């Protein structure tokens, strides 16, 4: 579905990604784990075309992403829920969701999708008239994921959805991700919460200083000596 081949990227003189190879198959939850600054978010930014790679190929369902603009990537069905949620602060919950269904192919399903995400996150239904900027971090994260789902994504890119959330909320966010995947959405999840991500992922990549150092199924990596030492403190 998504295939990244030898992706290299630099911010100016600083090289951030080195020959990243990554693949996501339809129906999977794939996670990219690693510490702060390993290049996880930068990889997602390259997929969404918010930045331009130095070299390498990125394809989605055969289409060459490097030829497209950000909004065209979204129209293909690759939707990112960005780090820090990036809710539109001066818009209500409903208006934020409506923006999620801005592209033509999603506009027809707008009402049905609003109902669907309200069922997934009942809290958003209660708060539908509230301004995005006045909500708590957890509510904003729900809204960000819901807004992403409004676009009818084939592949949902999630950047650090658990960042800054209370432990109880973290657990429910990961349950929600599993539920979304069960409804047929392929997920590429980028996380610092290594344990929780590996538990729900079919496959995983470990990124260190811009390189893929390990790859395998979620279970394999949970049992891996290096992962246990470096990330799980065991």
């Amino acid at each position, binding site marked *: 579905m998504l295939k990244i081949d030898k992706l290299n990227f630099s911010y100016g003189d600083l090289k951030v990604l080195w020959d990243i190879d990554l693949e996501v198959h339809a129906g999977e939850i794939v996670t990219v784990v690693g510490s702060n600054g390993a290049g996880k978010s930068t990889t997602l930014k390259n997929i969404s075309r918010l930045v331009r790679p130095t070299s390498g190929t990125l394809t989605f369902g055969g289409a060459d992403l490097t030829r497209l603009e950000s*909004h065209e990537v979204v129209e293909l069905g690759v939707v990112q829920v960005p780090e820090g949620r990036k809710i539109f602060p001066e818009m209500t919950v409903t208006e934020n969701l409506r923006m999620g269904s801005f592209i033509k192919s999603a506009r027809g399903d707008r009402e049905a999708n609003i109902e669907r995400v309200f069922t997934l996150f009942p809290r958003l239904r209660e708060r539908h008239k509230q301004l995005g900027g006045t909500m708590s971090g957890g509510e904003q994260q729900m809204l960000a994921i819901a807004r992403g789902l409004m676009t009818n994504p084939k592949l949902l890119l999630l950047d650090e959805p658990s960042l800054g959330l209370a432990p109880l909320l973290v657990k429910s966010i990961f349950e929600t991700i599993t539920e979304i995947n069960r409804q047929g959405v392929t997920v590429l999840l980028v996380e610092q919460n290594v344990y929780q991500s590996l538990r729900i992922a079919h496959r995983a990549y470990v990124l260190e200083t811009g390189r893929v150092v390990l790859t395998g199924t979620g279970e394999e990596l949970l049992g891996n000596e290096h992962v246990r030492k470096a990330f799980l403190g065991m």
Partner: protein
Amino acid sequence: MIVFLQSLMSGVLIGGVYALIGIGLTIIFGVMRVINFAHGDILMIGMYLTYFLFSVFGIDPFLSVAICIPVMFAFGALTQKFFINRMLGALPQNQILLTIGLGLIMSNTIMLLFTSDYKILTTSYSSGSVDLAGISVSQPLAISFFITAAITAALYWFLMKTDIGQAIRATAQDREAAQLMGINVRWTSILAFGIGSALAGTAGALISPTYYIFPQVGSAFTLKAFVITVLGGMGSIVGATLGGIIIGVTESMSAVYISSGWKEVVVYVLFLLVLLFKPSGLMGTSRM
């Protein structure tokens, strides 16, 4: 008391037009994060367009608003598409230089076409007034105020209720998030600059029966637009509306109670006071 009400009334009426100028600048700033230093010059083109339509075809300046809006929208949209969009992501000072340069080209082109002579557009009602409970209201100002109010209401509805209007607001609130929603931000930038130019051009058309028309008239309005926008809070439409009316009333009051030569001084003192005590402007926290 009558004098007070009289000057309050004319301040509010001219303030409505100022608001239109300020809203245009604030929409462009909100979406582009660029201060459009050609804003006054775009207004000046609107004035000349109205003058041209009046002197050649005899079209009434207020009717010419209907022509001015689409023409100035196209003018602004094309300027954005061919010049300013190429500078997206460039250093802010370079973008400012670009808009200043575009403004100079506009005023010099007009000077070439119409010479630098002052023009006056005289209509049958230019100096007419209507009596309203003892207060005399300038007829052209009253008409332009109603047109302004109608345009502002329509614009507000467009930005709040339509998908495209919401996409423009989304771009202003978080450009990157807007891109991730599948919004083509180059396109919303073109729209925003077109709308901003249409508003400035319309303001030019509306004041043409009451102002001198000359190629350099723009710079004074660029400055005024900037004061209005900063006073109201950069990027806030409600703020720009409020800022425009406050500046209009301040000018008119100080002309009556101090001296018309001092009205600019009062405006800038007020401006500095707002900056001193509320640097983000009156409606500073809220964006579009």
